[in-house]
């Protein structure tokens, strides 16, 4: 079964791309991504000047991952050797780049093209460090800035967007006009781990990139929104941990999907297992091509205004006498849920206004919404 994907004229053997990050920061890492079956590997962001790493640079609390990593620590000459040394097999190499001016971007992009990059991804609005906000989000200069690169190179140029920049239809239009051929969205959110109350100090020394499973809902929404704003392909990034997440993004119209934190947290082997699971799922459902599912869920996404208000109320779908759970009661601001003398949960349909939270939170599906 062939689940290959066409991205801006490149044939990807599957829909999985490894995202820009330290897992693809040297030849060994890139090779491991390729060997694990990634259809394309995006390098850590390359600049004209290398960036020294700070330590520590990864922070984690519960499921929340933060990084303070900005740009590759390799010189461009070392990247030349890296790109030379790796055995690409049938994978594509996409170089992530950043520069401070149009000419810097154009020069760097052209150099990397000549070193063998199959495509470029502009790290347009990374959340870490400081950069000219005007270019990363919206300015009259953005178009010239990107166009200089697009006009100089002969390979596809993709723009990697932050949540903020992806949310602006105006900015998206500008990038289209500048000639980018695809959008990657989203980059990490800007985040802070928290504050140590006793010491009155932040728990990490600078703003970090907040990534991983918690940002997936944001990224899902951005994929769907970009599908509506733009005809260009969207490569989704943000919070993919399981193969189902990949399928979700595809069903919202993604052309391909990027893996990032999941590699950082579970190692390179996860790439292979996600690819295999996606293909198994596709095959077991009888789909012959990614096109069979791409964007399939978009039709069910409606504007808020078009949703007809219905008068539903909570009722018991089965009796509940659990004494170890009060989730439904806690959830109800209307105090519609009580226990009767027999210790059974009862919803008072005259008080209930149908918000649905008790239903969402009930672990036993003991409550449902039905017509008043």
């Amino acid at each position, binding site marked *: 079964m062939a689940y290959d994907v066409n991205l801006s004229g490149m044939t990807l053997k599957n829909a999985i791309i490894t995202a820009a990050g330290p897992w693809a920061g040297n030849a060994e890492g890139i090779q491991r991504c390729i060997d694990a079956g990634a259809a394309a590997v995006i390098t850590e962001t390359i600049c004209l000047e290398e960036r020294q790493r700070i330590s520590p640079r990864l922070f984690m609390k519960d499921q929340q991952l933060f990084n303070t990593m900005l740009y590759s620590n390799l010189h461009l000459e070392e990247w030349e050797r890296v790109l030379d040394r790796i055995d690409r097999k049938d994978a594509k190499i996409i170089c992530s780049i950043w520069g401070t001016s149009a000419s*810097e971007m154009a020069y760097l992009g052209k150099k990397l093209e000549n070193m063998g990059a199959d495509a470029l991804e502009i790290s347009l609005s990374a959340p870490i460090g400081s950069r000219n906000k005007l270019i990363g989000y919206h300015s009259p200069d953005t178009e010239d800035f990107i166009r200089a690169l697009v006009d*100089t190179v002969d390979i596809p140029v993709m723009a990697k967007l932050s949540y903020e920049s992806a949310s602006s239809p105006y900015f998206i239009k500008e990038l289209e006009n500048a000639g980018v051929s695809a959008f990657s969205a989203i980059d990490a959110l800007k985040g802070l781990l928290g504050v140590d109350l006793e010491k009155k100090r932040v728990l990490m020394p600078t703003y970090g990139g907040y990534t991983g499973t918690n940002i997936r809902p944001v990224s899902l929404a951005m994929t769907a929104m970009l599908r509506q704003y733009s005809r260009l392909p969207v490569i989704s990034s943000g919070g993919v941990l399981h193969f189902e997440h990949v399928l979700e993004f595809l069903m919202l119209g993604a052309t391909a999907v990027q893996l990032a934190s999941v590699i950082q947290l579970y190692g390179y082997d996860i790439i292979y297992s996600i690819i295999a699971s996606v293909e198994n799922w596709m095959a077991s459902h009888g789909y012959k091509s990614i096109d069979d599912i791409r964007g399939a869920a978009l039709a069910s996404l409606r504007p808020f205004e078009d949703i007809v208000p219905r008068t539903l109320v909570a009722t018991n779908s089965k009796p509940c006498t659990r004494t170890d759970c009060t989730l439904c009661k806690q959830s109800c601001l209307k105090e519609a849920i009580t226990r009767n003398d027999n210790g059974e949960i009862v919803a008072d349909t005259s008080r209930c206004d149908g918000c649905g939270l008790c239903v969402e939170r009930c672990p036993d599906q003991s409550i449902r919404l039905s017509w008043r």
Partner: protein
Amino acid sequence: MNIKRIAELAGVSVATVSRVVNHPERVRDETREHVLSVMQQYNFTPNWFARSLNLESSNTIALLIPGIETDFFQQIISGVETVAGNKEYAVLFGQTNNYPTREAEFVDMMINRKVDGIIQVNSRLNGEETLLMQNLELPRVHIGKNRVCTSDTLCYVDIEEGARRMTRHLIELGHKIIMALFDEANSNTSEQAFAGINRALRDTGHTIIFSSAQAENSVRGGYLAVQRLIQSKSMPEALIAASDLQAIGAMKAARDAHINIPDDLALASLTDSAVCSVLSPALTALELPSKRLGMAAARMLIDQIEGTLPYVDMPHDLILQPKLKIRESCGNTQDIYEWFD
């Protein structure tokens, strides 16, 4: 037929084709044989190919630089050295002290030593000396905004834009009487800074009184300039110094006269350095990507020397943007210790 087409036909990258020509030892035997056979088949001998076959390469480049005292020039040297080292080139170094004749002598000397290319920093060559360069086929890159010596490749930091943003920032903080100290030995940079300041003055809706003076680019220069201002009772509300050194001198003069920075005098520097963030108050300054500038210049030069690129496709002007590091000396009172524009 061009190098790109050869790369396509041979099924390799452009870089590989170029390496086959320039550094055949770095290419696997089969790949080299294959690429050479494709080149032969299509009768492909680019001019740079001929050049690198005929001329003996010395694997040496020259760097002509006005001075080595300032952080800016030191970082440029470091950047050039880094890339040259990566590419296995040695760097011959000449300090011109801003004298065109000295620079011309160096160019002569470097040619005699058979360097593969020359990087000139803030070149002062003009007039007759330029003729010398015109007849010179040696690859050259100018670090500086102008094409004084007919070099067709140049790179520079956009000081004008940086100075504009710095001035705009000072105006936004409410300073109405602004003065700039320029480096008397570096008219090139001073002119760019002046142009940027002027743009900011033109774009603002406020009425700003602006003046400027020349001073030595040193702690002493800054110290004396501010002493003079104090004595003539013509202190501005905000002072833009040409460098961190000048700004440190200005701070000392202000402290001696019990003038508080930033309350009585706001201060900002057109160049940043490691000391700016540890001064008290921390100095607002323009971070110039000078190491990156040196790296870029060396790359653009080696691009030409090795003909590693379909050179016509490459941008020949490279402009790097500085970054305004807003700290405390300008009168910024935000809690966060440093922020940037």
